[in-house]
């Protein structure tokens, strides 16, 4: 019924979400990394500037003695100059001091004369042209002249500062350690940095003066910062690179945190999205499935309802059987609160010529099972009745077909057999409410011995016989009619009997409708079946209009009259009258004759209808006439008679008074 959709439909949005997550993660990571990098660069540059300023101070400190020495020479007499120079530089020169060698020179006519030397002899040969050129340069410059001197694989920085007014030049040499490495104190400006300081604007390793790394590792790689510090007439170039991360560790870790958490988040979101998409698809699919199921259920219920209805109609004949002399009316009403079909039923069948059977039963519960049980009970009882069983015998035999311990339903039934000619009715009861006898005097329940419901084990039933008076009706029903929630069943029975009187002929349906209306309850939880049998005050029978019709009509009327015990004299007169009237009808060219016999207390009406032409007239037959005496005879026999023209044919009616016409009363136990 449902198809699982291809996963591609679900992965597409998930992939999009994942991709978006990854892109956002990458962007975030990149931005964080870039911010961190910028911060690092800024920090590096800041620290480098700080280091450069520290270097500037150091450089100034280095030049300070040179400047001081020149000033001293201008203020002292020449003979004291050398001595002062010596005193001034003693503290600055030595193996551990700032300078290894310091010397005072004075310009002479040709070249320079060495006035005083403190410490070691200069590395640069005092007689060399390099030194003379250097001193010359110092005289021409306004600042300290700095240069490097390479000798014996050592680098020495040479400083020369001159006073052009006096012609004095101070020359000092500062050796660079062999490895040119200088440790970095943790609290110095260089802490956290690798650095390399070069003399001059270049970064040639040969001009490198100080570093904290192995000279072989130079130049510094990675993130570097470069700045220059003025150093005499040249500069010191400082190149730095961070030893580690300069900024906060969070700033450093942030990109990775972002990357990791972004990836995790993206993955999680993608998973959740996938789950959601799947859930939604499943929900949609489930909804479709459920909708489909509901539709199917609806269809099944509708089908079931239709089936029930058809079953109901099949099992409860809408057309009452044609029992002569009896008017039969039936009704089945489904429960007000339960659409399901119930197990109530009624049944009326013609048996032999004079007899008929009827059943009203109730299978407890609703639905197919109840209906199946109902059908079983109904047709079982019907079969026994057709087989000639008495009501009590039919119940006994049927009861053996049921087992209340195995069947889930309780079956009660009222079974009766009647003779429509005599009105004799015999009824047996298996746990069913008593039938109601409705006559001129009102309604009363017929007291019938009540046996157990069907299927309660071996049992015998007792029957009760009574006579159904002409015009009276017997109403059998199921308990749904009298049961009302919260009301004792006796009250329901009382309400049913109250104010009910026999209906007009042909109005038995109306009587049932009246009963149902009176007993109507919107809360009715059970279905109701009602069967009413009324002993007709009139009987109509049709005959083919031929020479045998008079005899057939006589036979029919004779039997009816003998059954109603109207007396021999009246019976003979009526039989003769019907013979005359039917003969007249046949002789008038009719094809159909209908004989209707109606009786009530003290009166009997005979009507003969035919579809023939002509108009019956009472002839004044002479003695030797061979016909025409029929109506004269009817006139003589009956109390009164008349002819009624009808749209089709005519009707001749004749009337008799009945002597001592007391309607028979039902015998009561």
């Amino acid at each position, binding site marked *: 019924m449902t198809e699982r959709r291809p996963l591609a439909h679900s992965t597409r949005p998930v992939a999009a979400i994942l991709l978006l997550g990854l892109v956002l993660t990458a962007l975030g990571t990149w931005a964080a990394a870039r911010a961190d990098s910028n911060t690092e660069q800024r920090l590096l540059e800041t620290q480098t500037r700080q280091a450069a300023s520290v270097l500037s101070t150091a450089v100034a400190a280095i030049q300070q003695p040179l400047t001081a020495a020149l000033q001293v020479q201008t203020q002292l007499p020449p003979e004291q100059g050398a001595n002062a120079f010596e005193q001034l530089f003693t503290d600055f020169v030595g193996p551990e001091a700032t300078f290894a060698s310091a010397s005072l020179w004075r310009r002479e006519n040709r070249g320079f004369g060495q006035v005083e030397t403190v410490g070691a002899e200069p590395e640069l040969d005092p007689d060399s042209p390099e030194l003379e050129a250097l001193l010359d340069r110092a005289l021409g410059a306004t600042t300290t002249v700095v240069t490097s001197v390479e000798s014996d694989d050592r680098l020495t920085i040479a400083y020369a500062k001159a006073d052009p007014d006096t012609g004095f030049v101070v020359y000092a040499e500062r050796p660079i350690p062999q490895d040119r490495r200088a440790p970095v104190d943790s609290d110095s400006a260089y802490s956290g940095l690798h650095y390399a300081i070069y003399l001059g604007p270049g970064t040639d390793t040969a001009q490198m003066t100080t570093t904290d790394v192995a000279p072989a590792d130079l130049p510094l790689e990675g993130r570097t910062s470069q700045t220059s510090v003025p150093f005499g007439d040249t500069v010191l170039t400082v190149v730095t690179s961070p030893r580690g991360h300069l900024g906060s560790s969070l700033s450093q870790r942030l990109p990775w945190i972002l990357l990791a958490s972004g990836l995790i988040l993206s993955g999680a979101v993608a998973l959740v999205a996938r789950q959601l998409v799947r859930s939604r698809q499943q929900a949609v699919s489930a909804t479709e499935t459920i909708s489909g199921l509901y539709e199917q259920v609806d269809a099944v219920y509708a089908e079931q309802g239709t089936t029930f209805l058809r079953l109901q109609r099949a099992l409860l004949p809408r057309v009452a059987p044609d029992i002569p002399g009896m008017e039969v009316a039936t009704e089945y009403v489904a429960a007000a609160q339960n659409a399901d079909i119930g197990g109530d039923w009624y049944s009326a069948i013609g048996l032999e010529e004079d007899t008929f059977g009827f059943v009203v039963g109730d299978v407890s519960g609703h639905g197919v099972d109840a209906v199946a049980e109902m059908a079983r009970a109904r047709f079982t009882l019907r079969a026994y009745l057709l087989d000639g069983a008495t009501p009590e015998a039919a119940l006994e035999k049927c009861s053996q077909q049921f087992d209340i311990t195995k069947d889930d339903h309780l079956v009660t039934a009222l079974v009766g057999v009647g003779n429509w000619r005599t009105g004799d009715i015999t009824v047996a009861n298996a746990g069913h409410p008593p039938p109601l006898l409705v006559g001129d005097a009102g309604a009363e329940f017929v007291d019938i011995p009540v046996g157990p419901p069907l299927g309660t084990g071996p049992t015998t039933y007792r029957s009760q016989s009574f006579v159904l008076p002409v015009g009276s009706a017997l109403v059998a029903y199921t308990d749904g009619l009298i049961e009302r929630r919260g009301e004792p069943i006796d009250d329901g029975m009382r309400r049913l009997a109250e104010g009910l009187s026999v209906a007009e002929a042909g109005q038995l349906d109306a009587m049932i409708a009246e009963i149902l209306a009176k007993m109507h309850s919107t809360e009715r939880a059970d279905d109701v079946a009602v069967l009413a049998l009324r002993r007709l005050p009139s009987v109509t029978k049709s005959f083919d209009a031929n020479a045998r019709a008079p005899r057939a009509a*006589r036979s029919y009327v004779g039997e009816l009259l003998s059954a109603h015990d109207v007396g021999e004299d009246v019976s003979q007169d009526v039989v003769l009258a019907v013979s005359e009237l039917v003969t007249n009808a046949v002789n008038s060219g009719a094809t159909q004759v209908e004989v209707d016999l109606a009786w009530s207390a003290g009166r009997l009406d005979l009507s003969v209808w035919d579809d023939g032409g002509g108009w019956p007239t009472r002839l004044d037959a002479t*003695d030797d006439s061979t016909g025409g005496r029929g109506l004269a005879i009817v006139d003589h026999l009956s109390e009164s008679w008349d002819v009624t023209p009808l749209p089709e044919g005519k009707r001749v009616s004749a009337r008799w008074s009945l002597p001592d016409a007391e309607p028979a009363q039902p015998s009561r136990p």
Partner: protein
Amino acid sequence: MATFELDVTGDGDAVVRMSGEIDLAVVDEVLSAAREGLAHHDGLRLDLSRVTFIDSTGLGALVRVRNESAAEGKSLTLVDVPASLVRLLDITGLHDMFTVVGGVDADDDGDGANRRP
């Protein structure tokens, strides 16, 4: 159904014994049986003792038999007339047209066959 038997008495009259119900269905048979009886005899006796019913149509047939026998100068006698026919004869006033013998003559509380108006 009605049945008809033809017999002859010692004095030479024909006897037709009818039984059953005499009505429209059997009028032709009544007539043919009676005519057969009349054909070879001077008199006809209709034995009605076994007739269970007769209406005006059956009576009409008897009247025709009576007319035909009278026309031929032959005698017609109804024998053992049942009460229902006696009453019919009374009602129709045809009692005097038939010679009736036996039957319910002794019946004094009914419409006797020998009762004359």
